[in-house]
């Protein structure tokens, strides 16, 4: 079972290096790719201005032969080249590189030309390493979907469960978050949560314990939940937290980092092949763990459950 970021790194190294397609890489991307190569996680494939990239690579531990260079001076063409490599299997993981997050996200969600898949919602999960014990928690969706419908939430949850199981959590415990723990027709998130929980009861998510709606105190504390008359193995020990929409998801992801000083990494889920977005509050070191996590997703359908 994978309980820490170090466990993720160790597991990914066992699988051998993966080919990273990196369009229009910045100096930070080249440095990251070098670290990934040194760690035995990656063989970088840079698409961009070959001369400029070679200069950046020379300033790292990378040597000629450690990486591939695809000459594509135009950033959009470098993205197309990288995408094509990943789609064809010539590369394993698509990195954002120097492409804007908006353009890159569009590629991830494009079901015709990009990495999107028919009938599957592409989502983003933030993973956190708890500070007081060895346990990883997943919060989703924290970046990609603004106001997911119930059907999209169902898929976002399925995506997250796929990742949780990949991490070795046999029966993931899921907290479907809302403002209150009671089902209130005036608060739509509580209705969606109740439906998802019922789906969970009926095994529509496979082997998982799905509880909702849960407000944060019930999700985080069994004692607090008990005060509200709520008994569930999920309370106080959830593996997956599904948020109602992006205002909650993105700000919660940030709050755990900035107020909680928790280390975080992220994963794009539901794509045909693994891909990595760069969120501003993920450190350089943790981006290495993101590569390791994406490596674990290789061959696992982009983490879709």
């Amino acid at each position, binding site marked *: 079972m994978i309980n820490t970021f170090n466990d993720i790194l160790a597991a990914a190294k066992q699988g051998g290096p993966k080919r990273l397609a990196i369009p229009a890489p910045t100096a930070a991307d080249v440095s990251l790719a070098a670290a990934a190569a040194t760690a035995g996680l990656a063989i970088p494939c840079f698409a961009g201005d070959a001369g400029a990239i070679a200069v950046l690579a020379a300033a790292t531990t990378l040597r000629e032969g450690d990486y591939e260079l695809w000459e594509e001076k135009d950033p959009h063409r470098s993205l197309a080249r990288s995408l094509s490599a990943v789609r064809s299997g010539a590369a394993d993981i698509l990195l954002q590189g120097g492409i804007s997050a908006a353009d890159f996200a569009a590629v991830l969600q494009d079901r015709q030309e990009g990495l999107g898949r028919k009938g599957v919602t592409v989502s983003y999960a933030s993973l956190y390493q708890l500070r007081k014990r060895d346990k990883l928690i997943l919060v989703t969706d924290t970046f990609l979907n603004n106001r997911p419908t119930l059907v999209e939430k169902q898929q976002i949850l399925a995506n997250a469960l796929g990742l949780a199981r990949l991490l070795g959590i046999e029966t993931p415990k899921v907290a479907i978050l809302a403002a209150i723990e009671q089902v209130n027709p005036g608060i739509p998130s509580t209705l969606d949560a109740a439906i998802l929980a019922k789906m969970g009861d009926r095994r529509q998510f496979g082997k998982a314990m799905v509880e909702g709606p849960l407000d944060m105190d019930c999700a985080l504390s069994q004692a607090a939940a008990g*005060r509200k008359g709520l008994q569930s193995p999920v309370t106080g020990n959830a593996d997956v937290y599904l948020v109602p929409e992006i205002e909650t998801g993105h700000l919660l992801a940030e709050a*755990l980092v900035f107020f909680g000083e928790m280390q975080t990494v992220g994963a794009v889920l539901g794509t045909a092949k693994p891909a990595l977005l760069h969120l501003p509050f993920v450190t350089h070191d943790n981006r290495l763990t993101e590569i390791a996590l994406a490596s674990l997703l290789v061959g696992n359908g982009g983490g879709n459950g």
Partner: protein
Amino acid sequence: MIRSLSDIKRLAGEKGPKKIAVLAPEDEEFMLAVKKSWEMGYIEPVLIGNEGKIAQAAQKVSFDLAPFEKIAGGELQGISDLGIKMLFDGTAPIAGKGQISTSYIYRSIIREEARAASGMTVSVMTFWEIPGSDHLIAFTDSGVNINPDLNAKREIIKNAVFVYHLLGYPRPKIAVLSGQREVGGKLSSYEDYEALRAAAAAGEFGSCEIVAATSFTEIFLGGRQNPMDYSRLKEAELPHIFLVPCLDMGNIICKLDLFLDVNRSSLVATSRGPVCIPARSDFSDVIVQQIAMCVVLADRMGKEVQ
């Protein structure tokens, strides 16, 4: 200036006891909080609700109710209406929620505000005391408005600025939070931020400032392009007030105290005084803290407003 919950406790001891209309204190944990608050000299409770249940709860925590006024009440809306009326007619400068749903309390407050023609919107402020920070921060509205529109947000800001002025902050800084990020287009919460920032600059909310940041990343790192550095997080200058985009986000974030190294305290500031509204899951120490904050607010409102 009140900088911490310790300041609040000290001041509550100095300014108390204040009369508090306690609505349905029929739960052991809440009654224990009333007992502790009484023993610390914060409050003089007036207990409203089912006499048998109140007596039973008091017995469980060995609290002798003989010295206190008790008012028999039946159905919950009636109990709530009575207690909130006591707040608005000046009989009690504070009201406090026991085992009663907040929806009853909010309904009572809205009715009384309408009668008083105060124009005040009901909103909840949840304060956090963060170790190392030189001031309390507050999330609002963390309890009432499900998806506040721009006008509702204006009123929520006015309430929060009013409270921060009472706490001794002459020009509180406000962050209008939004899930706006590099993808997903422009969110309505971000459009609200732009409108509210302009309104604040024009003086609509009195002495305050809306900061140029809508995410915690911008607040802590100074911008979304700046590198993440955990070692510098404690240096960040935090706004005082965080206007949340919706109830889901506000309530979920404010209860992270169970996960993080922060202390939490919530209240509703009405035009006539504070209402203590602990969550049904709160334990007595947290409730005592909330009562203390209401005592201090009531004292300051009594002097500066009424």
